[in-house]
């Protein structure tokens, strides 16, 4: 028994190292001077340039991109993450409410329309989607960035499942008290769904923050870059070569792009796991 538990710990420690070490090395390397990195390669111990490097990346114009600072990209990422999460929860709760609680003629066909979005991931409709957004004049806008992303079916399925598990007696009682459909939704269903809403918000914040392909094709101006898009730009600069490659900045940018979603996942771990496991069912 004792021996097997030691091997168990060894496997888990190796797994944890495999998952964690790359991020640690990225962080440690981001705190060194560029010539140290070029001379000695990746770093395992933090260096003395933490404040200097992060200050330059976050606040100095031209520090990391041509013009825009990482702080501005962080703001854009926040808008995308929060806008995506909130928009998705609102839209899918409303739709799920209609589908579960109302009898109406088009309920079934509309449900299938929503279902179809599962078959149309963005990747298979990239170019026409870009054309639609550009025809609507939504390139480089928050609306164009967020709205096309929030309509997929996952959130709606999730709330549909949850609403179905709410006891019917609640609606009967509410109706005896004279509640309208909006009143029932707002005063009873939404408060009941609080935990579910929190779980979905957390997952969707991470998903929204990490969006890549869509922001990539529909932002053309640097001031609209998110951190994840900044990653691509810095990759471009590094692979083009030229002057002294600024590896410390590239690593600092990966750390900044990683930190907020990781913090959200760590702080709200229990809700996050619940939301992930439930929403994918």
């Amino acid at each position: 028994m004792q021996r097997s538990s030691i091997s168990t710990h060894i496997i888990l420690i190796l797994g944890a190292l495999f998952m964690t070490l790359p991020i640690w090395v990225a962080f440690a390397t981001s705190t060194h001077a560029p010539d140290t990195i070029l001379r000695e390669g990746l770093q395992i111990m933090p260096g003395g340039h933490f404040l200097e490097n992060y200050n330059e990346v976050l606040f100095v114009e031209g520090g990391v991109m041509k013009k825009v600072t990482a702080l501005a990209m962080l703001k854009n990422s926040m808008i995308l993450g929060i806008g995506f999460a909130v928009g998705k929860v609102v839209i899918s709760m409303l739709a799920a409410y209609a589908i579960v609680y109302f009898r109406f003629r088009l309920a079934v066909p509309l449900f299938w329309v929503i279902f179809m979005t599962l078959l149309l991931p963005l990747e298979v409709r990239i170019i026409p989607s870009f054309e639609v957004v550009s025809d609507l004049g939504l390139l480089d806008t928050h609306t164009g960035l967020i709205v096309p992303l929030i309509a997929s079916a996952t959130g709606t399925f999730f709330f549909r499942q949850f609403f179905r598990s709410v006891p019917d007696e609640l609606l009967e009682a509410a109706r005896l008290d004279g509640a309208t459909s909006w009143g029932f939704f707002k005063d009873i269903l939404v408060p009941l769904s609080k935990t579910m809403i929190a779980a979905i918000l957390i997952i969707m914040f991470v998903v929204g923050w990490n969006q890549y392909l869509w922001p990539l094709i529909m932002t053309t101006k640097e001031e609209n870059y998110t951190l994840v898009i900044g990653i691509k730009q810095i990759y471009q600069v590094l692979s083009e070569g030229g002057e002294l490659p600024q590896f410390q900045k590239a690593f600092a940018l990966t750390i900044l792009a990683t930190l907020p979603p990781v913090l959200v996942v760590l702080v709200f771990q229990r809700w996050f796991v619940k939301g992930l496991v439930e929403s994918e069912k």
Partner: protein
Amino acid sequence: MKRVQFEHSPIPYLFVAPQIIIILVFFIWPAAQAVYQSFLLEDAWGLSSQFVWFKNYVDTIGSSSWLQAAGFTIIFSTLVTFLSLSIALLLAVKANEVIHGASTYKTLLMWAYAIAPPVAGLMGNLMFSPLIGDLYKFMNFIGFDFDHKLDPFDAGFVVVLISVWKQVSVNFIFFLSGLQGIPKSVNEAAVMDCRSPTRRFWTITFPLLAPTTFFLMVINITYAFFETFGIIDTTTRGAPGGATNTLVFKVFQDGFRGADIGGSSAQSVVLMLMVLALTVIQFRFIERKIHY
């Protein structure tokens, strides 16, 4: 459907309207466009186009570069799915056994979920950089003639490694929650009957995890097909010579870089059919699960 519902009224249409409108404008319309454009041949300036039936399909899908991408995508997704599922299953089983430090292990193993694929891609790319990358030096040190910029096999290795790394945590979370869903009494009964833990795992635990595993397979194949775009785009970009092009990456390349709208649309439609097949498999399976 609920037994008790609100009566007929226009109200439900107001509730579903936002979602349906967005779907029509940003999902159905572009997808229909993709299908339509896949039958058109545009001239080089996009000024005129003519209807060519299945010519785009025959031209692009019969081309050697598409077949190469399809071949790579199949090998790539098989490897990524198999490796990330195996590693995650091993870790989940061990994390479920352990008593001391269980929550620390769980946290350390699951947090990489939050990292975006392109971020993982850039990180991995820098670690394999010939200038500063220790992994690059290490691979050469242990005797491989490693050069992922020139060697297709090495490039594939880098992309697979990063994609597996990024996917382990999701699989780990699902396997662990699956394992925790197995009743204690089942495990206790199994211990009575069979002393070998390895055999117990393969005869009792693993079959009970089959629904989770199957579901995760679909998720992982979808991931390997679509979401790894961000990893490829920040590492090899299909190099060397298209050896690490996935089908999705090729749609993007041909459409945006190559401006071959018809060919790119035809590839999109083929991908849609693949997603359709995956979804059908997934739902048939879920239906079966409900019958248990």
